[in-house]
């Protein structure tokens, strides 16, 4: 069981941050795995909410998407998307939302729409899904994504989900991004600017800085993320035994 991949460290670090949360809105992609892991490790009481219309899921396997039948079967409630977005999300019942991102900038602006120009894109990404309103209506937003100089950019090409603008986030925008977990480290926000909170074991600060498109200031004494426990790794590998999603 010793040794772990960067992806495994990333989802383990993300799952841990859900220890004290109650209601978590689960985004598509990596958040799906991180939250499924949290439910099996850090916080079995966590209430998982999916934009597909599920509240209180108890997934019996790794959900293959946010609309997997394992999420509906055995859930506390399954409802239409209107009710899910209007009453659960917009009504303020979600403590934390875990989102993915293709690009993020130091202000926490998230881009999942397009690389390059909107009208003539270099890469057309999936788009908002529910992320735009989730980022506004959840009490706080966590992000999990792979970090590189191409994904951690000075300015996102397109703001899909709003971060912390200069001068602060207006109250009606909600609290916005509070945490970013990558394969290299964990980031928080101080006065609306992303800061490295911890680096994962075996990662040096130069690597983190190189995988960041802006000049990231890092305290030399930055903490190290505690390594995955045996129990955490075992749970990850039960979820994704063939490493289909966590290479």
């Amino acid at each position, binding site marked *: 069981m010793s040794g772990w991949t960067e992806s495994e460290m990333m989802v383990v670090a993300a799952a841990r941050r859900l220890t004290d949360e109650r209601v978590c809105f689960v985004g598509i992609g990596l958040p799906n795995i991180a939250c499924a892991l949290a439910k099996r490790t850090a916080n079995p009481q966590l209430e998982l909410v999916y934009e597909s219309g599920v509240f209180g899921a108890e997934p019996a396997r790794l959900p293959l998407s946010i609309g997997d039948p394992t999420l509906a079967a055995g859930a506390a409630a399954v409802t239409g998307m209107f009710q899910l977005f209007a009453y659960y999300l917009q009504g303020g019942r979600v403590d934390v939302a875990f989102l993915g991102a293709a690009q993020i900038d130091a202000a926490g602006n998230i881009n999942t729409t397009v690389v390059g120009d909107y009208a003539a894109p270099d890469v057309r990404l999936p788009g908002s899904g529910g992320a735009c309103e989730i980022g506004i209506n959840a009490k706080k937003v966590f992000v999990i994504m792979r970090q590189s100089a191409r994904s951690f950019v000075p300015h996102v090409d397109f703001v899909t989900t709003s*971060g912390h603008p200069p001068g602060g986030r207006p109250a009606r925008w909600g609290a916005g991004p509070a945490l970013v977990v990558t394969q290299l480290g964990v980031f928080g926000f101080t006065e609306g600017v992303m800061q490295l909170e911890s680096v994962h074991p075996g990662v040096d600060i130069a690597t983190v800085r190189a995988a960041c498109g802006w000049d990231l200031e890092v305290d030399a004494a930055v903490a190290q993320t505690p390594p995955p426990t045996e129990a955490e790794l075992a749970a990850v590998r039960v979820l994704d035994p063939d490493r289909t999603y966590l290479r």
Partner: protein
Amino acid sequence: MSKVASMHDAVAALVRDGDTVAIEGFTHLISFAAGHEIIRQRRRDLTLCRLTPDIVYDQMVAAGVARKLVFSWMGNPGVGSLHAIRRRIEHADPAPLEIEEYSHFGMVGRYTAGAAGLPFFPLRSYEGSDLPTANPRIVPVASPYGDEIVYAVPPLNPDVTIIGVQRATAAGDAQVWGLTGCQQEAAFAADRVIVVCEELVDEAVVRADPNRTLVPGLVVDAVVVVPHGCHPSFAQGYYDRDNAFYLAWDAISRDPEALAAWIDEWVYALADHAEYAAKVGEERWRELTPVSAPSGGVDYGSYA
């Protein structure tokens, strides 16, 4: 009174070139069978609407039925991209594809306004996002109470909405369990509705549990009975998502020739979805069939 039709006849009668068409179902109950029949009948210039254009829309776009896409999340869920759609958006290859883009709740709000005869739907979204710039149909609206601002989206009224359901009567009363997405709103918003069911059931089955009815026959024009009609997506309690197909689609979709060959083999060469299901094969259907998990029942009482 029966609205039961073959998929061929339902599509022939109800889906027209140039129509705005919504095949709805959020990951669940996506009527691939209907999408394939639209390809087979070579419809053209469709505006395809759907929260999550996924493989079936990639196939339809690749086959040339669409001129425009209205959506909120476009991808191969849990896997990656829809390459045929991306080629058209990124490189106009082989032709441009117009897009009109919202968020999920924006699309849900559009169907809701469409179903409810409202000129707009207000929602708390889009603050600080570039989406309203990219799509000028997303506009701010002031509350008539105090000075609050929210955003509005316009109604969406498809010419045709097509939904997959687990069971329906010949009159079109349709029942769904598991994820219900926004099929109800999309159906009520539409001018014409095709219900594609796994099973046709007696009226007595539906009337024994009327809270389960998602869409009434009132708004339904055709009922098409297609077992396994949502493969490779799933039908709760009937079959699982065929994840191997979703994973395999990535490579097929990346290669225009492979994609064209797939459509030839799995759509044009087959007369209907029954042939498709036979080609998928009994072994695969067995693998995809879940262990039973009955809902239990409730008592409505008889009040005579």
